[in-house]
């Protein structure tokens, strides 16, 4: 028995001239692990390699200690929820699940039981008899999750499971994914291009960019790494001139600039946490009328820019 759910050693996969995965080294432990990367980073390629759908050009990949390529035993222990929208629209959810369950070799009685169980678990039982073409994005995600769980896999690979779901569905799905590990002991590898979503599921993350792992470990360590770099914070509203004068006196403010006829102030700060702690009192003192305030760097691309060389 291996301690790792997934191991990749010097793994490379290319499609013609395009590199999907580039000499990737990775060890995913038991529990929930998030793979975070922008679109095109190689997340889906990792899942395809891990489910034995495609063969690596170089290196090796192991799932639960074995190579998944042509390995029915291992593939049968994986539940894969692909980032794939073309479900059988003309069919009902129930028929779709019957089809997927049959592909896993489940017999009718156990399949019926499994469909009832998993659809109830993911909250899909209410719309299972409707045609898939009438489903919202959130419903489709739930249906795909039910299909993933039908054969009770040991390990779950979830490729962008929250994509397109509405806020309530996202919240529910995040809770569900956490519970699949906490209560059902499934090991979960979940991908997203939204860091905050993954943060709500797990602290263990792997950041990939252009087919390579650029950071992995506890998310707080990665956050600290990011916080060492200056942040750009945008403040939009009226009467922000006075606020700018006060900000200039603060040690951690590196620069200030106005945009949009002085209705937008861009502040570059070294200690973002200190800034966010101080800003409410400054706003009160100056009477600034703030519509919106956000960090320009609190997005995944900025995180990657920091990590791959400090470029903005």
């Amino acid at each position, binding site marked *: 028995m291996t301690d790792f759910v997934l191991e990749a050693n010097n793994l490379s996969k290319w*499609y013609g001239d395009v590199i999907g995965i580039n000499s990737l080294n990775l060890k995913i432990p038991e529990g929930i692990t998030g793979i975070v990367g922008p679109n095109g980073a190689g997340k889906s390629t990792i899942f*395809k390699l891990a*489910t*034995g*759908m*495609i*063969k690596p050009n170089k290196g090796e990949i192991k799932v639960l200690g074995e190579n998944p390529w*042509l390995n*029915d*035993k291992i*593939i*049968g*222990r*994986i539940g*894969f929820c*692909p980032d*794939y929208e*073309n479900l059988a629209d003309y069919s009902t959810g129930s028929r779709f699940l019957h*089809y*997927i369950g*049959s*592909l*896993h*070799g*489940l*017999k009718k009685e*156990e399949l019926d*039981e*499994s469909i009832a*169980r*998993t659809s*109830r*678990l*993911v*909250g899909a039982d209410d719309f299972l008899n409707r045609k898939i073409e009438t489903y919202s994005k959130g419903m489709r995600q*739930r249906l795909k999750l039910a299909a993933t769980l*039908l*054969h*009770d*896999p040991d390990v779950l690979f979830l490729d962008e499971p929250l994509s397109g779901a509405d806020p*309530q*569905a996202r919240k*529910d799905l995040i*809770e*569900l994914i956490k*519970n699949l590990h906490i*209560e*059902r002991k499934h090991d979960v590898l979940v991908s997203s291009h939204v860091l905050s979503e993954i943060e709500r599921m797990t602290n263990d993350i792997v950041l990939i960019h252009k087919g390579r792992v650029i950071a992995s470990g506890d998310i707080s360590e990665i956050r600290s790494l990011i916080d060492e770099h200056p942040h750009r914070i945008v403040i939009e509203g009226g009467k922000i001139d006075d606020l700018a004068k006060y900000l200039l006196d603060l040690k951690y403010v590196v620069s200030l600039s106005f945009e949009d006829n002085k209705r937008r102030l861009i502040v570059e700060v070294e200690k973002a946490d200190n800034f966010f702690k101080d800003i409410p009192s400054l706003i009160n003192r100056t009477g600034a009328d703030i519509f919106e305030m956000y960090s320009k760097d609190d997005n995944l691309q900025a995180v990657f820019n920091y990590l791959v060389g400090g470029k903005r």
Partner: protein
Amino acid sequence: MGIERIEYKTWKGKKTSFSKRFFVIGEKIFLNKINSKAIWILLVIGYILVHVFTIASAPFYPREELTKELILDGRGTLIGAPYLKGYFFYLFTIILVSVVCSDILSQDIKENSFVLYFSRPLRTVDYIAGKLTGSIMIMSLFCALPPILVGSSVIATQTGNNYMGSFGILGLTTIAGVLTSFIFLPYAVLLSSFTKRKAYSGIGTFMTFFVLDIISDIFTNFNTNWRLVSPVNLLHYSYDIIYGTELPAEINSTLYVIAVIMLTILPLFTLFIRIHLKGVKG
């Protein structure tokens, strides 16, 4: 939504491969195709032009026994025109195979739905076998079922006592029908794996068979073995072999075997390689 945490119990069934899994794919294809209007229209027209008169007239035109001449050449039927060896039968067979297989793989490529299959314990062979099984089931509705009905109705009304001989011919007719259902499929399925557009795949399949017929006609003047290039001739020679007739003396039997392999085994092998090794799945 309401997450139910209590009732979810893990399934403890068998998680390894299931040998008849290809049949699940075949059944789905059959059900999808049988619900297609285009397939139904084609089947109705084909039945009217090829089968209906022969099936309907058989009981009213009793014969001593079922013969291969009746099934192949329509000898002794009300119409008297060739049946299995009739050109309309061949024509509708290649039209149907073109339509049935037009989206058989092209749709999976277009929608990238290989992931639905290959992220599960399913081999490339299972996938191809499933696609072929579903297609054969549909093709059989036109290529195998009607000749069997004709044979059965002739036996039911035959005047002679040689039922063994008649049932023997009925068995061979079933084999011939299944062969007709299958023989053009490998090439059509292969062509469907080259494109995302089902129109390209369908028209490409039909035109290939059509052009091969023309090429065969042109070059047969120089060498009679060129007849083997024509799918219709190849099919008719295969009928002869099934019904126990030797190939015509001017046809080289080795070339016949090679032609059959080129039409069936080679496309299947190429298809397997494309899906398995060249990453159509990726």
